[in-house]
């Protein structure tokens, strides 16, 4: 019985791992193919099935004028938008979360929980519902097709995540900590900045990672709200998809776009294993 369970367990884990890895392996293999090896028949293993070429990767560093795909600029745009919006969301979200965790708010029937729920509920809003008004809103204030416009929109996307994680985190940071600081003569801001914040670094890192993930992977807003001036990475890669199957450069650019966040998986796992994440995510 025990043996059967172990056997089933490892079979399942192995199958799932294969399922997860399969598209990546396929993309890696495809990125080294040329027209012939994509279109004649399905090929898998370089040298054995097809002669690998670096064409797919070379296209990425060529200038657009010479048939290249300019992926560098969208890359930096994506990094800028994601990081700026995450930073703003974390700062504002952490402050709000601290307030919601430590103080009591009362306004009519509105209590702390309702305010927290208001923050988090913004995630329910389907992007499409917001995108049309945002489109008109941003074009009125002249921020359509600009990095700043996207940052503004992404704050709505990311602040709920920051609040969600930080409220739970602060609830688990003992209240005695700030109380002691206040007795020692700190004002509330110093107590927050000098005592609570340094003790919340794991929570901040988890919140930061989640903001970065959800900022980096967003496609729809970038797709609707930008055209030519500014392009973000996902939009650029999807635009390649619509042209006629140059699967090699498509795969290469896809791989290079998803690569940086895979490092995040290692960081998340570290925190998970150290037990820091459990507090931050419950």
């Amino acid at each position: 019985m025990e043996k059967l369970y172990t056997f089933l367990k490892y079979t399942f884990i192995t199958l799932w791992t294969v399922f997860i890895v399969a598209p990546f392996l396929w993309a890696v293999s495809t990125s080294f193919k040329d027209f012939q090896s994509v279109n004649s028949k399905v090929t898998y293993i370089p040298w054995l099935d097809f002669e690998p070429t670096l064409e797919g990767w070379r296209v990425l560093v060529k200038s657009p004028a010479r048939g290249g795909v300019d992926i560098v600029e969208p890359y930096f745009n994506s990094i800028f938008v994601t990081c700026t919006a995450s930073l703003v969301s974390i700062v504002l979200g952490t402050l709000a979360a601290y307030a919601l965790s430590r103080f009591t708010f009362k306004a009519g029937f509105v209590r702390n929980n309702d305010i927290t729920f208001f923050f988090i509920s913004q995630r329910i809003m389907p992007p499409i519902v917001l995108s049309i008004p945002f489109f008109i809103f941003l074009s009125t204030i002249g921020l359509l097709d600009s990095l700043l416009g996207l940052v503004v929109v992404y704050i709505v996307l990311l602040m709920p995540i920051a609040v969600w994680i930080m409220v739970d985190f602060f609830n688990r940071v003992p209240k005695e900590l700030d109380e002691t600081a206040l007795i020692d003569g700190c004002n509330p801001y110093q107590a927050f900045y000098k005592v609570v914040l340094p003790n919340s670094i794991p929570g901040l890192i988890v919140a930061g990672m989640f903001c970065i993930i959800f900022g980096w992977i967003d496609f729809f807003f970038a797709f609707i709200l930008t055209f030519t001036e500014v392009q973000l990475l996902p939009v650029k890669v999807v635009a390649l998809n619509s042209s006629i199957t140059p699967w090699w450069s498509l795969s290469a650019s896809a791989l290079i776009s998803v690569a940086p966040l895979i490092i995040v998986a290692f960081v998340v796992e570290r925190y998970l294993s150290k037990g820091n994440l459990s507090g931050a995510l419950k």
Partner: protein
Amino acid sequence: MNFKHKFVFLFPGLFVLIGILIFPIIFTIRLSLSGWNSYTPEMNFIGITNYIRLFTDDPRFWESFFRLSFLSVSTVILQYIIGFALALMVWKEIKFKRFFRVIFLIPMMTTPVIMTVIWRTFFHESLGPVNDLLGHIGIGPILWLSDPVIAKFTVIIVEVWQWTPFMFLLLLAGLLSLPKEPFLAAAIDGASPFRKFVYVTFPLMAPISIGAIIIRLIEASKIMDTVFVLTSGGPGTATETSSFYIYIKGLREFQMGYAATLSFTYLVIMIISLTIIAKVLTKLMIKE
């Protein structure tokens, strides 16, 4: 504590959020009462004509809504079962524990649209590896993307691949934070692994499970990226979800007014149904 400090902490975030959102929401409501389209791009007032049209003369929206319900509920159930199983498996010591944990997390770190572009080549009906490999064992070419029924399952497969890691992460973080005593007690009683799961692990995990399911349902109800790239709602309207239908009405056909009506109705339905689901799940899973 001093009265005004709490507002200094809360208000910047709250006001930024409200400031950014207030216009879009009011605007959507106002727009939904107008006949704004590509012929008359202006904010006229036509009352509830759009709403009447939606409730009496637009089966396509309701179909897309039921399709969305089917897709999101079935993907979330699959993600929950698989994510829970995986979390249980790498919870305790196993070989290469940390390696598997990292692997299981990776898909949620990847951009859905970009991975869907890869999936599209993966499921390509004549040049993709899936049909090729199946062909070798004698299973005829499956129309992954062009058969109305199978295309739905293709979307589900991709969604499960993409988002099971999130469920896995939330559940594993939950498992790792459980108190040790109930498990010790169960071990002393000599409970079998199965009974231990049913009577100890699962009840302890119920609140976390509900949280994880609700969060995933919220995110799944926004399925859009995958559909957009994988099938563009097709074949026909076989994989068209509410968001995608609103997108077509609003930003392809420029029936802005009507799209706003759809948006607003959709939002209200989502909030109501998610609240009900949360209540029902809490009743079902937490026994007093």
